[in-house]
């Protein structure tokens, strides 16, 4: 066990290749069988790369949704402040801070996934070239098989390609693990949204901050209408109003203009 990392790892790869090579009596069979296998693997690699890209795009969408949510909460906080509801504004900003943390976190993972994906694309292209090289080489080896050295050539080419395959296979596995992690994170956020802790960006269900802001605004609209009615009445049937309540509505004018602000805010 005096071997270091480099040696041990190459031994592990070699023993894998040798095991596969030992299965055939005639090494030429190995070449054909192996080439078939390589083409299948190449297909798998291409599919793997495509899968990683798809998952990456899904995470990207998820992040966009979160960004929209964060922007929306910021708007809500502003609106709440305009309405003098600092408590609501604080609540909205607290939730926003939560989402921003998640976005930052997802973002750094997203970037490393992007790096892995670029690497995978490069590796799979390289693998394609190697498979092509193997195809040419196997024909040459088969043609000159009578020579004893062919045996050694077969071993080299086969080990070389199986090492390449192993490498790409591992890279795909790593990228898939990464996307699975990100997907899990993204669906955790989905669940939070479903439970109402975060807003549903589809707008089908309203979060409590929106509801409160709307009720404040619609309260303002009612006040508004009342004020308008009062004005109409004060023109024609001023007496009836005054005799009806006995109290003056003059003090309400300030609140009415506030209500206008509320209403504008609510419609935005």
């Amino acid at each position, binding site marked *: 066990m005096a071997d*270091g*990392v*480099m*040696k*041990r*790892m*190459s031994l*592990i*790869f*070699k*023993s*894998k*290749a040798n095991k*596969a090579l030992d299965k055939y009596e005639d090494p030429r069979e190995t070449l054909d069988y192996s080439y078939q296998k390589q083409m299948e693997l190449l297909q798998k690699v291409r599919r793997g790369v495509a899968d990683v890209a798809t998952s990456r795009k899904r995470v990207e969408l998820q992040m966009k949704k979160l960004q929209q949510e964060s922007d929306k909460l910021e708007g809500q906080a502003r609106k709440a402040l305009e309405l003098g509801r600092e408590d609501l504004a604080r609540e909205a900003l607290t939730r926003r801070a939560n989402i921003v943390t998640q976005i930052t976190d997802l973002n750094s993972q997203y970037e490393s996934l992007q790096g892995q994906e670029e*690497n995978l694309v490069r*590796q799979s292209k*390289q693998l394609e*070239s*190697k498979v*092509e*090289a*193997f195809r040419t*080489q196997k024909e040459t080896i088969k043609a000159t098989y009578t020579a004893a050295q062919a045996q050694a050539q077969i071993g*080299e*080419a086969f*080990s*070389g*390609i*199986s*090492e390449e*395959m*192993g*490498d790409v*296979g*591992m*890279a795909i*596995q*790593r990228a898939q693990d990464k996307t699975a992690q990100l997907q899990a994170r993204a669906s955790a956020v989905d669940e939070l949204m479903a439970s109402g802790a975060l807003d549903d960006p589809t707008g089908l269900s309203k979060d409590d901050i929106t509801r409160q802001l709307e009720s404040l605004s619609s309260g303002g609209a009612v006040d508004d209408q009342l004020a308008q009615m009062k004005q109409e009445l004060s023109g024609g049937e001023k007496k009836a109003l005054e005799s009806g309540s006995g109290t003056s509505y003059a003090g309400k004018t300030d609140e009415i203009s506030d209500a206008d602000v509320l209403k504008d805010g609510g419609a935005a």
Partner: protein
Amino acid sequence: MIVRILGEGQLVLDKEALVELNKLDNELMAAVEAGQQEPFESAMEALLGKVRELGTPLPVEELKPSDFILPAAHSSLDEVRDLLSSDGLIPG
């Protein structure tokens, strides 16, 4: 001699480089066995860096097995340990 860095490809190096690489490799192996994160990270970086510095990429149309294989950059300590302890991680 040919050294493969997993995820990057194969590099051709002079045999003389082995002395230097072995030294760095032993440090890496020690860090892996001790399970120490920081020495592991710096040993990985030093070893991979040296291979990249001294090596020239093997042309893609050449099919040769590597004399030595190194883990991918930014592999975790656990990943490297798994690589060394079994061949389960390497797809056939």
